[in-house]
C-alpha cells in the first residue's frame, strides 16, 4: 500500500508541476508576443500612413515550384507591397496534392488564397471559394479588361465566377519562338542527309532508318517513346498531331462543325502504332520504352544514342537543356542536340504543333477562400497586378536593371543582363514567384506597346540566345525561329479540350481512366508483336475498346466545345 500511495503522490506532483509550468508560461508568452508585435505594427503604420495597413495573406499553391516564402522578400513583391500594402506568404505543395486539399476541406480551414491545380473540382464542390462577381464589379477594372471577353466562359453552373483562370490572352498573339511539341531528330542526322524538308511520318522514319543503316556499328537507337505512368500520353497523342490537330487531349475537334471525336480506336492510331511496329521489327525502336520510367527516358535522351522521338517540349526540357549547355561549351557536340520537325501523315496537311490562340483553360485557377480575412484587399491586389506596368515588371523587370529599351521602343536585354539573370537571381528578384499561377497575361500575349509579354517570345531576345550553330541550321531552313518551321496556328475559341472541367466520378472521368488502362495494356502489345500478328492484336484491342461508352464521351465533349464557342461568340 505504501508503495502505491507514493505512486499516487508522484502522479499528483507531476500534474501539479505541469499545470504550474503551463500557467507560468501562458502569460509570459502573450506578453512576449504583444511585445514584439506592437513595435512592428507601429512602424508599419508610420511608414505607410497615407495608405492602408500592411497585411499578409496566406496563399497555397498546388503546384510544387519554388521555396516557400514571402513575396515582399523579392524585389517585385516589395514593389507590389509598396503599391498595395499587401504581402503574400506562399506555400507550395509538398507530397500529394489531393491529401493536402482533402485535409483543408475536411477541416474547413483554408489559406486566404488557394491555387488548387488539379484538385479544383473538389474545392468547388466543397464550396471553399467565395463568388467574385461583385468584387470584380467594384474593384476590378483591370480584371475586367484582361478577362473581359472570357468572363462568361469562367462562370460556374450557378452563373457565378469562383476563380480567375491562370492566364488570359491580351492584345496580339505571338507564337512562342520554339515549338511546344514535335517530332525531334538529332541534328547530325539532318546534317548528314543534307537538311531535307521533312513533312511526313514516312519521310521522318526513312531519315532515321538511313542514318542508322550507315552507322550500324554505333549501337544507335532509332526512336524511343515515353510511356511511364500518367506521362503515357506522349505515346498515345501523336495520332492527333499527325492528322494535323493541336493538343486537345483525348479528342480532335473539327473547326467547321465543332464535333469532337476520339481517336484512341481510330485508323490514325492504328497507322501510328503500325509505324512503330515496323520500326521495332527493323530493330529501330527501343523496346525498353514500355518499361522505362521517366528518369531512364531522360537519361536515354542525353546519352547521344537516340536519333529521334516525339514529345512535348516541357516534358523533355531537362534533357534538351543538358544537351544545349554541353553544345555551348563544346560546339562539336551540337549534332547531338534535337531539332523539332512538323511531321504529319500526309504531305498536304498543315500541322498544328503550335498551340493555337484559344479560350481559357478553365479547370485551373486561383480563388479566394471562405477563410479569407479581407477579400477586398486581395482582389485589389490581383487587379493591381494586372496593370500594364506591373505585367511588364513581372516578366521584364526594371528598366535599366533587367532590360533596356531602344529608340523604336523595343524591349531587349543586353548580354550582361542575360548572364546576370540566373536561377538565384530569378528567385531573389521575384521572377520565379511571379512567373505563373497568378492572374496574368498569358505567354503569347503582347503588351500595349507591341512588345512581347514573355521575354523569351521577344524576337530580339530570342536571337541573342542562339549559338552560331543554331543560326546556321535555322538559315538552312530559311527561318529565324524554330516555330516558323511550323504552320501558323488557327484560332480555336474553345481550346484546349483537355482543359474542360470534368465532374468527379462522372462517366467522362471513368471513360478516360478505362481508356488509359486499355491503351497502356494494348499499345505495347501492338508495337512489340511481330508484324504479321499486328492485325490480330488490333482486333483484340478493338473488341475491348468497343466496351467503352465512347459515343457518350464524344457527345459530352462536343457539347462542351459548342458551349464554349457560343460563349466566345457572344
Amino acid at each position, binding site marked *: 500500500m505504501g508503495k502505491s500511495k507514493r505512486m499516487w503522490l508522484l502522479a499528483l506532483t507531476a500534474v501539479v508541476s505541469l499545470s504550474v509550468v503551463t500557467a507560468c508560461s501562458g502569460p509570459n508568452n502573450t506578453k512576449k508576443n504583444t511585445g514584439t508585435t506592437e513595435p512592428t505594427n507601429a512602424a508599419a503604420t508610420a511608414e505607410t500612413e497615407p495608405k492602408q495597413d500592411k497585411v499578409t495573406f496566406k496563399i497555397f499553391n498546388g503546384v510544387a515550384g519554388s521555396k516557400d516564402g514571402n513575396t515582399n522578400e523579392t524585389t517585385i513583391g516589395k514593389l507590389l507591397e509598396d503599391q498595395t500594402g499587401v504581402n503574400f506568404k506562399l506555400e507550395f505543395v509538398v507530397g500529394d496534392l489531393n491529401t493536402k486539399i482533402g485535409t483543408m476541406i*475536411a477541416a474547413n480551414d483554408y489559406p486566404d488564397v488557394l491555387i488548387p491545380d488539379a484538385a479544383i473540382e*473538389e474545392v468547388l464542390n466543397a*464550396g471553399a471559394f467565395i463568388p467574385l462577381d461583385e468584387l470584380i464589379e467594384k474593384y476590378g477594372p483591370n480584371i475586367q479588361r484582361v478577362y473581359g471577353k472570357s468572363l462568361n466562359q469562367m462562370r460556374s453552373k450557378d452563373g457565378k465566377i469562383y476563380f480567375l483562370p491562370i492566364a488570359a490572352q491580351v492584345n496580339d498573339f505571338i507564337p512562342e519562338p520554339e515549338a511546344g511539341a514535335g517530332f525531334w531528330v538529332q541534328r547530325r542526322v539532318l546534317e548528314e542527309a543534307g537538311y531535307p524538308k521533312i513533312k511526313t511520318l514516312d519521310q521522318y522514319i526513312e531519315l532515321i532508318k538511313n542514318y542508322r543503316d550507315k552507322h550500324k556499328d554505333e549501337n544507335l537507337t532509332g526512336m524511343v517513346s515515353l510511356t511511364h505512368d500518367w506521362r503515357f500520353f506522349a505515346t498515345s497523342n501523336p495520332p492527333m498531331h499527325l492528322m494535323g490537330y493541336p493538343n486537345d487531349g483525348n479528342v480532335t475537334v473539327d473547326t467547321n462543325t465543332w464535333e469532337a471525336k476520339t481517336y484512341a480506336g481510330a485508323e490514325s492510331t492504328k497507322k501510328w502504332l503500325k509505324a512503330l511496329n515496323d520500326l521495332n521489327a527493323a530493330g529501330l525502336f527501343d523496346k*525498353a520504352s514500355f*518499361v522505362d*520510367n521517366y528518369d531512364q527516358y531522360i537519361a536515354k535522351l542525353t546519352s547521344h544514342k537516340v536519333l529521334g522521338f516525339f514529345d512535348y517540349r516541357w516534358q523533355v526540357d531537362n534533357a534538351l537543356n543538358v544537351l544545349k549547355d554541353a553544345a555551348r561549351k563544346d560546339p562539336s557536340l551540337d549534332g547531338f542536340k534535337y531539332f523539332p520537325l512538323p511531321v504529319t501523315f500526309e504531305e498536304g496537311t498543315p500541322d498544328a504543333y503550335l498551340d493555337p490562340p484559344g479560350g481559357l483553360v478553365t479547370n485551373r485557377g486561383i480563388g479566394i477562400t471562405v477563410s479569407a480575412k479581407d477579400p477586398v484587399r486581395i482582389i485589389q491586389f490581383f487587379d493591381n497586378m494586372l496593370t500594364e506596368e506591373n505585367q511588364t515588371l513581372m516578366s521584364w523587370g526594371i528598366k535599366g536593371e533587367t532590360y533596356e529599351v531602344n529608340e523604336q521602343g523595343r524591349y531587349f536585354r543586353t548580354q550582361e543582363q542575360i548572364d546576370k539573370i540566373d536561377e538565384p537571381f530569378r528567385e531573389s528578384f521575384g521572377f520565379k514567384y511571379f512567373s505563373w499561377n497568378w492572374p496574368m497575361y498569358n505567354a503569347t500575349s503582347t503588351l500595349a506597346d507591341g512588345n512581347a509579354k514573355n521575354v523569351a517570345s521577344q524576337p530580339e531576345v530570342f536571337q541573342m540566345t542562339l549559338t552560331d550553330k543554331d543560326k546556321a541550321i535555322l538559315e538552312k531552313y530559311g527561318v529565324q525561329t524554330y516555330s516558323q518551321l511550323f504552320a501558323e496556328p488557327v484560332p480555336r475559341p474553345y481550346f484546349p479540350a483537355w482543359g474542360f472541367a470534368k465532374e468527379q466520378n462522372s462517366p467522362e472521368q*471513368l471513360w478516360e481512366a478505362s481508356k488509359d488502362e486499355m491503351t497502356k*495494356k494494348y499499345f*505495347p502489345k501492338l508495337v512489340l508483336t511481330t508484324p504479321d500478328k499486328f492485325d490480330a492484336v488490333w482486333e483484340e484491342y478493338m473488341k475491348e475498346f468497343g466496351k467503352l461508352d465512347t459515343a457518350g464521351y464524344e457527345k459530352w465533349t462536343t457539347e462542351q466545345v459548342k458551349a464554349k464557342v457560343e460563349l466566345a461568340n457572344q
Partner: protein
Amino acid sequence: MDKNTVPALSRPAADKEPGRMRLFFKKLGQQRALAVMSVPFLIWLFVFKYLPLWGWSIAFQDYKPARKFMEQTWIGFEHFKFLFGDDRFLRVLRNTLAMSSINLFFGFVTAITLALLLNEIRNIAFKRVVQTVSYLPHFISWVVAASIIQTTLSPDGTINQLLVGLGFLDRGNEILFLGIPEYFWTIFGASSVWKDIGWNTIVYLAAMTTIDPTQYEAAEIDGANRFKKMIYVTLPGIKSVVIVLLIMNIGYLLESGFEPQYLLGNGMNVDYSENIDIFVLKYGIAQSNFSLSIAAGMFKTVVSFILLFMANNAAKRMGEARLY
C-alpha cells in the same frame, strides 16, 4: 520452451465462481497503478483505432467531401455491388492473394533457412558480415530498389547481358522481363526475398538464442549430427515464434504491399501486377470516389479478420502457441 504460454491473468476468468466480480475488483484494486498507467494507452487506442471506424459509414453513401453527415446521400450496398460485379476486381483480388501467398511462403522459408544456417556458423566475423549484407537492402526504399530491379532487368541490363554472354540469347532478342505478365509474380517474389530476407532472420536468430544449450548437448550424446540437431532441436525451439508470426502475417494476407507493385508495374504486366491497393488508388482515390475506396478497405479488413481468426483457431486446436 513451455507450451503453455497463456498468461496467468486469464485463469481466474475460466472458473465460474459466484464471487467472480468481487475477485475482479479485488485484483483491480491491487493492481490499480497498472490500471491507471494503461488508461492513456486505452484512450489512444480508442481515439485512433476505434473512432475512425465511424468513417466506414462513407462506404454506404454517395460521399461528397465537406458536406455534413446528415446531408450525404445514402445508397446502401451500391459500391460493394460495383466492386464484386467488376471482373477487374476479381482479377486484382487474385493478384493480391497470389502475391501475398508467394511473399508469405518464400519469406518464411528463406528467412528460416538462412537463420538456421547462420546459427550454425561459429566464425562470428563471417556471421556478422553475412547478416549485415543480407539485411542492408531492407533499408533501401522501394523507390530506389525498384529502380535497381528495373535497370537490372532491362534489355541492356546485367541479366540480359549475362544471358547473351553465356550464349542463351542472341543479341537483339533480349528478354523484356517486366513486359511479360507471367513473369511478374516471380520477379516480385524474388525482389521481396532479396529485400527482406536478412531483416526477417533477426527475430528467428533471437528466438534461437533462448534454446537451452543442454538440449544440444543431450542430443549430441544421443548421437545426433549437426543436421539432426537443426531439425530436432533448433526448429522445435523456434516453433512458437514461427507460429505466432505466421498467424499475424496471415491476417495481412490481403495486404500484399503497394510500392513494389506500383513501381514495377506497367501497362504490359498490369494483368498480373495490379493489386487491390492499386485498384483503389486508380478507381477510388484518383477519381475522388472515396466511398469506393472505403468499401474496398472494409472488404479487406473483414477478410483479414476472418483469416486471422481461422489461423488462430487452427493453432489453438493443434495446441500451439497463439495470439490470444
